[in-house]
Each structure stands twice: as structure tokens, then as C-alpha cells.
């Protein structure tokens, strides 16, 4: 584990050093403010499209929903509209619950063995809570950044800023979501070290993904809280990027470049790492299919003929003994 952690830390530090050296020593402002973000975004876009297409174009041969509630069968038995969906709406709601509410994670219960009682089940909501807080904070943080890409700023974005900055007492504002996201990330990180089952299945890249996002948020905070970059200059830069008239910011410091580089890396890394789960969940065949397998025929596009044993062949082998035993056979009927 130490080894895996070390690799994850080293690689994160390496990523932080790259822009520090690139900008601070080699003066490659242009490369890091224009070339890198564009490239990263392109990789993100093509990577994402490629991955999603690779799933979407491969066929799902069978209808294999994981049924978690009463099927629809007899009229007087109450069927489970969402857990065993039999309509498109039911499937849609099931997916919605999974995606918005992390429904399956909510089922989490820990199992332990016990010498007298044999098994102990404890309902655990920590992973669910941590994931919910993390994902939703990240969403708000991302939406907040829209401020940098629109002029005038859309009203819902300003509203978000105001709602998110309850701690007005601090100057500059401390955002609640920054703090929540960091706490949740730390929880997920330490969970991966301390819960042995999870630790056992974690790779260096699992730790790295968490460290990367932690660094993104921390560097973002640094930019705002400590180095107090010129927001107007930053906005001029971001607007330049989206309008394809790139502008190299003048006065921002190295913290800004670190943040920008880490975000760029995150984008480029996304499609080729486990982070892609965000896109995959929509296609999960155990969740997005109806439990109506006997009601509507489902087509497998590659359903090829196989070698079977036909009734004739079978009867040929057993006809004699069947006749003797007085069991009706096909051939005899025809003869007579």
C-alpha cells in the first residue's frame, strides 16, 4: 500500500511541478495558458465521444435487468414500478434515482462475522453520504466557474455564488462547497487506506484520482484566498479561450498556472481512467432495461443458429424402447 500511495503522491507532485517550472523558470506562459487547455479539452472531447460510442455501438444481446422488486404478473399483486420497471417511465425513474440519488449505494450494509451470532449486518450510509457530498459539491464548483465564461454572468450562477458563500465574514469569501468537497475527498481517501477491504482492491491510480481532485480544489482555493489574482484579468483570459481569441494573462501568478494545468490534466485524464464511470452508468444494462422479458421479445442482433439435437434425431435413438414402453412416437403414427 505504501508503494501505491507513494506513486500516487509522486505523480501528483510531478504534475504540480510541471507548470511551476514551465512558467516560473522557462517562461512558457503561452504554452500553459493556451496550448495546454485547448489540447486537454480536445482530448477530453474526443476521448469521451470515443468511449461512449464504443459502449453504445456494442450490442446488448440480452435483456438482463437486475430485478429488485416484485415483477408485474398477476393484477392483484402489487408490482414494483421502479425496482422492477416494466415501462419506459419506470426505467427512467430507476435511472434517475441511481444517477441523482445513488440509490444502490444507499443499500450499503456492512457484514461482519461473529462467533455466537454468526453474522452481523450494519446499515452504513457513510459511503453514500461522502459520495453525494463530493459529487454535488463538485457540480456546484463547476457551475460556479461558469461565471468566468459568460458576460454578463447568468443570474443563476450569481445566485449560486451568493448561496454558496455563507461565510461572508472571511475575505475573500470561503465557499461552502470547497470545504465540503475537500472533507468528502479526505474521507474517501482515508477510507481507501483504513478500510482493509477497500485498501486491498485499490491501485495507485485510485489514490491518484483522489489526490488529483484534491490538488485541483486546493490550488483553486490558493488562487483565490491567498494570491488574490486579478479576477478581471482571469476573466479576460477565459473569455478569450471560449471565443477562440486566446489572450495570455499578464499579472496572474504561478498558483493560477498550477490550477489551470491540473484542471487541464483532469479533463484529459477523465475519458481514459476510472473517472469515466460518470458516463458509463447511463448505459448499465442491469439498470436501464425493463423487466418485461417474457412480455416483449428482445432481439439479439448476433443471434446465430447453433447445432441442436432435433426431435427426429432424438426419437431415432429412443424409438424402439419407447414403443415397447407404450409411449407415443412420431414415426409410428405416420406409418400406421
Amino acid at each position: 500500500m505504501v508503494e501505491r500511495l507513494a506513486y500516487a503522491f509522486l505523480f501528483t507532485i510531478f504534475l504540480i511541478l510541471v507548470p511551476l517550472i514551465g512558467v516560473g523558470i522557462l517562461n512558457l506562459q503561452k504554452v500553459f495558458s493556451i496550448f495546454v487547455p485547448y489540447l486537454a479539452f480536445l482530448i477530453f472531447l474526443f476521448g469521451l465521444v470515443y468511449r461512449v460510442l464504443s459502449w453504445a455501438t456494442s450490442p446488448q444481446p440480452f435483456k438482463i435487468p437486475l430485478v429488485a422488486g416484485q415483477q408485474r404478473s398477476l393484477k392483484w399483486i402489487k408490482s414494483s414500478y421502479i425496482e422492477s420497471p416494466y415501462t419506459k417511465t419506470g426505467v427512467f425513474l430507476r435511472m434517475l434515482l441511481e444517477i441523482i440519488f445513488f440509490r444502490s449505494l444507499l443499500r450499503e450494509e456492512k457484514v461482519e462475522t461473529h462467533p455466537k451470532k454468526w453474522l452481523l449486518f450494519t446499515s452504513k450510509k457513510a459511503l453514500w453520504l461522502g459520495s453525494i457530498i463530493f459529487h454535488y459539491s463538485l457540480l456546484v464548483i463547476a457551475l460556479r466557474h461558469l461565471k468566468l465564461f459568460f458576460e454578463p454572468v447568468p443570474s443563476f450562477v450569481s445566485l449560486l455564488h451568493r448561496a454558496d458563500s455563507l461565510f461572508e465574514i472571511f475575505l475573500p469569501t470561503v465557499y461552502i462547497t470547497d470545504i465540503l468537497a475537500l472533507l468528502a475527498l479526505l474521507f474517501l481517501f482515508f477510507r481507501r487506506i483504513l478500510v482493509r477491504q477497500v485498501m486491498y482492491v485499490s491501485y495507485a491510480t485510485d489514490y491518484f484520482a483522489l489526490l488529483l481532485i484534491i490538488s485541483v480544489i486546493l490550488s483553486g482555493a490558493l488562487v483565490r484566498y491567498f494570491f488574490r489574482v486579478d479576477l478581471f484579468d482571469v476573466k479576460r483570459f477565459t473569455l478569450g479561450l471560449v471565443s477562440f481569441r486566446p489572450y495570455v494573462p499578464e499579472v496572474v501568478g504561478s498558483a493560477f498556472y498550477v490550477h489551470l494545468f491540473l484542471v487541464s490534466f483532469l479533463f484529459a485524464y477523465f475519458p481514459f481512467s476510472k473517472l469515466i464511470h460518470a458516463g458509463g452508468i447511463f448505459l448499465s444494462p442491469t439498470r436501464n432495461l425493463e423487466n418485461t422479458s417474457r412480455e416483449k421479445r428482445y432481439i439479439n442482433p448476433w443471434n446465430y443458429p447453433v447445432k441442436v439435437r432435433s426431435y427426429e434425431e432424438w426419437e431415432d435413438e429412443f424409438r424402439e424402447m419407447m414403443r415397447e414402453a407404450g409411449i407415443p412416437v412420431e414415426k409410428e403414427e405416420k406409418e400406421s
Partner: protein
Amino acid sequence: MKEEKSVPSDLSPKDENWMDKKVEFKKGTYCYGAPLKHQKYLDLPHPREWQPHNEDWNLPENWKEIILEGMKSLLEKYRSFKLFMDICVRCGACADKCHFFIGTGDPKNMPVLRAELLRSVYRRYFTLSGKIFGRLSGARDLTYDVLKEWFYYFYQCTECRRCSLYCPYGIDTCEITMMGRELLNLLGLNIQWVVEPASNSFRTGNHLGVPPPAFKETMGFAVDEIEELTGIKIDVPINRKGAEILFVAPSADYFASPHWYTLLGYLMLFHEIGLDYTWSTFASEGGNFGLFHSYELMKRLNAKIYEEAKRLKVKWILGGECGHMWRVIHQYMDTMNGPADFLEEPISPITGTKFENAKSTKMVHIAEFTADLIYHNKLVLDKKRNDKWIVTFHDSCNTARSVGLFEEPRYILKNVCNYFYEMPENTIREKTFCCGSGAGLGADENLEARLKGGFPRAYAVRYVKEKFGVNMVACMCAIDKASLPILLDYWLGGVEVCGIHELVGNALVMKGEKERTKNLRGEPLQREENEKGL
């Protein structure tokens, strides 16, 4: 009560890199290789005599190529496979959900790790990050040891799908196990307990290799037994053309115990309602061990059901109590061997109920059928005749998580017996624990693994036994009926196993029957006085 049975003590894996740990074929934990004769009969690839514990598996020269090619082709054919290879985040939510992990404490039985065995190879050969970062991103080379590990752990998964329930992305390790077994088959690595029944079923029509005359003879025994119990001589139609309904059950029902009593229950029920139906000696098996082997074998074995329905010119098909049989019928049959446009949409001839949910497949589950009969008051039932039993219900994984048959069997049970109690909520319905012997693992040589895998189920039964005095576990799966008695005897004792229709048969009041003093097992209807006070 055998309290001292060693309960698995520790579910926390030790810190070591699982990738380096070689698998050890310890006697009692793995199944034997398939006999040559049956491999040949089914035209399986690379047939040879072979055993898992042999150092040398006599693999074909180019085995790596075969596996990687096979993987490529499966990735192209199954979105489920591709997706499940890509999106696991190793959150660990599924880790302690597998009965094999709980029972053995072996970390490679955590569903996530079972899947990683295959995923690590996928990463190494099919993804960019795996090619660049190698081990750091969980990629590893395909080696002889990896292959052995696959065999060991893909044949230590009962394809029960419990893990998938808890996974935030619905990753179904059953699906991955199925792919793993497809790949192993490409190298001729198959187990006896799957291939032999499959080959029998292909040749004779059923797993046990029962030829038609023996089938008829057995039914004769059943008729005699029923006559002795009830004084009524019933008729068992076999291969009767033009019957309205074809009835297909797992062959264990007519050749194994306690399945046998379920068979008696079916026969009595069909007689009592005057059902126009027939058995078939060709489609004399509802179960399908192909499901535990490969798509192709599953389809080959399944084909006979529709073929026979067509030949006998029935209107629709009724299916007996079986777990994996129903996964195949519900989720695969119509897609593989349909459309069944030569049959009619099933309607109960007794109640007129249309089974809308089976409109296309045209096959109805007997629990649906019987529940409907009871609901419409078509049966006279005397619950007291089951008073000997304090009953609980084991949801078979397949009819639970792949079909959603939760209420029908419960409705029947509550109508045929007075004492019915549920096991703890985390062990039933969609959360049900497997018996530990599904997916072709019901062999003798791996008994230790089965007993450990069944441990969570045994726990749940012990719970209701102590709390409510439960002495009977009802279930609707042929494999359960064979494996639960052994399991429960080992862990607790004093609990028996039956099918739903055995209890139906006990309670069923038949027209013109003599006074019943014995249940279908030939035991007195009531508990002996000294047994009563539990």
C-alpha cells in the same frame, strides 16, 4: 445445535498484493474436470482428459492468443462485458455482499476482485492506461497462473447476482463470471458437474440421462404413491399431442429427494383442477446447465422446449419449480429461440386469467399459475395438514433477482400453511443469499466450498429456527432442494427442505379422497406429542 462449527473469523484481507498470490487447488474447494466422453459428445473445443490440480493442463500451443481473441470477440458482442470492464471504481460496496467471501474470507471472492482477475488482463491488452501505466493502474500479463486463478474463482461464483444489487453502477459480477467461463471453455477447461448433465440433457432430454421408459416408469411410481395417500388414481399424460399445455420441470423433480414430493404436489394439483396438459420425454428437463457454460450451449439445450411445444401442438407452456431454469426462460429463451409465434398467449383454463407478463415467451411459472388459482378460490385447501411444519421461504437467487417472483410463492405459502415466518430482511427477496451450490457447483468434491458459501443462508435459517422454531425451508429451485438439506444439516440440523408444491399437495383437498393421515412424505400429519413443545 452444533454451535462449535468454525465460523469464518476474519473478513479483512491482509496487506499483500493480490496480483502476486498464486492460487492453490486445495481438495474440497474446486470441481473436477469434465470427462472426455461428454466433452466430445458436445463438440467442446480441445477435448482431453484433464484435472485442475494437475500441474500441466495440456493447453493448446497458442492458448494466449485464443484467450485474447476470445476476449476481443466477447467485448464486441456484449455491451455488458465492455462496460463492466471499464466503469468499476473499486468503491468496495460489493465486497462483503458475496456469500463466498463471507463464508471463506478469501479476498479474491470479493466480487470486485473476482472481476479484477479478468479486468486486469483486459486493461493490459485492451486499454491505453493499462498499456502505459501497467501495474499501477491494475494491469497485468496473462500468464498460466492467471489462467488457473480464473478457473478457480470463476468456478467459485454461483452467478447469483447479489453483488450487482449493491453496486452503484449495477456491475454484475455474474455477467463477468459468465464471460470468464466462456473464455475457459475455449481452452477446454470445463467442469464435470456442468458438462456431464449438459451432455446428458442434449442426448436424452434431461440432466440425469433418464431414457423415456424410465421416465414413464417413475411417473407410474408417483401415481401409485398418490393413490396410496389419497385413494385417488390419477393420470399422467406423456407426449400427448393436442394437449392445451406442455408442462416442463427440472428433472430432479422426478428423480431426487425432496424434489419428489413437489412432483407429487404438481400431479395432484393438475388432476384436481382437471388440467388438459402433457409431460414430454423429449423436453424432460427444464434446467439448463448451458447457462453455466456458454451462450452457445445454453441455446442448444434450450431449443427443445419450443420445438417440443410445436410438435405436440400445445397452446402454451407451464414451467415447474427451478431457479436457473427460470433465469433462462425469463431472460434468454425468447431472445435465443423465439419467436414462439406458433403458440398462443397463455390463459388459465380454470380462471380465465390472461398471463400478460408471459405474452411473448408463452411460458408461465407454476407459482404464478397456482397463486392465481388460489386467488380465484379454485382450490379447497386445508392448512392444518401442514401444521407439522413451521415454514420459512428461501428466495432462489434466479427467480428473485432475475425474475422478480417474490409475492406469488409467499401468497401460496400463506394459503397452504398456518405457520410462516420470514428470515431476516437482509437475507430475503432481492437481498437473498444463495444456497452456495448454484451455477454448476453442486458437486461432491467441492463440498467444503459449498458449505462455506452457504453459510450466510444457514445463518438466516438458524435465526428463524431459534426465534420461531422454524423446521422447514420452502424454496422453488431444484438445486436448492438438493443442496440446502446438506447445508442445513451441517450448520444446524433439525430443519428440512421442501418445494412450494409439496405443501400445496399436502393442503389440497381432493374430490373423493380418503381421509388423509399422512403427508406426501408418508409421515403422520401432525407432530408427535413429544416433538411439539419445541
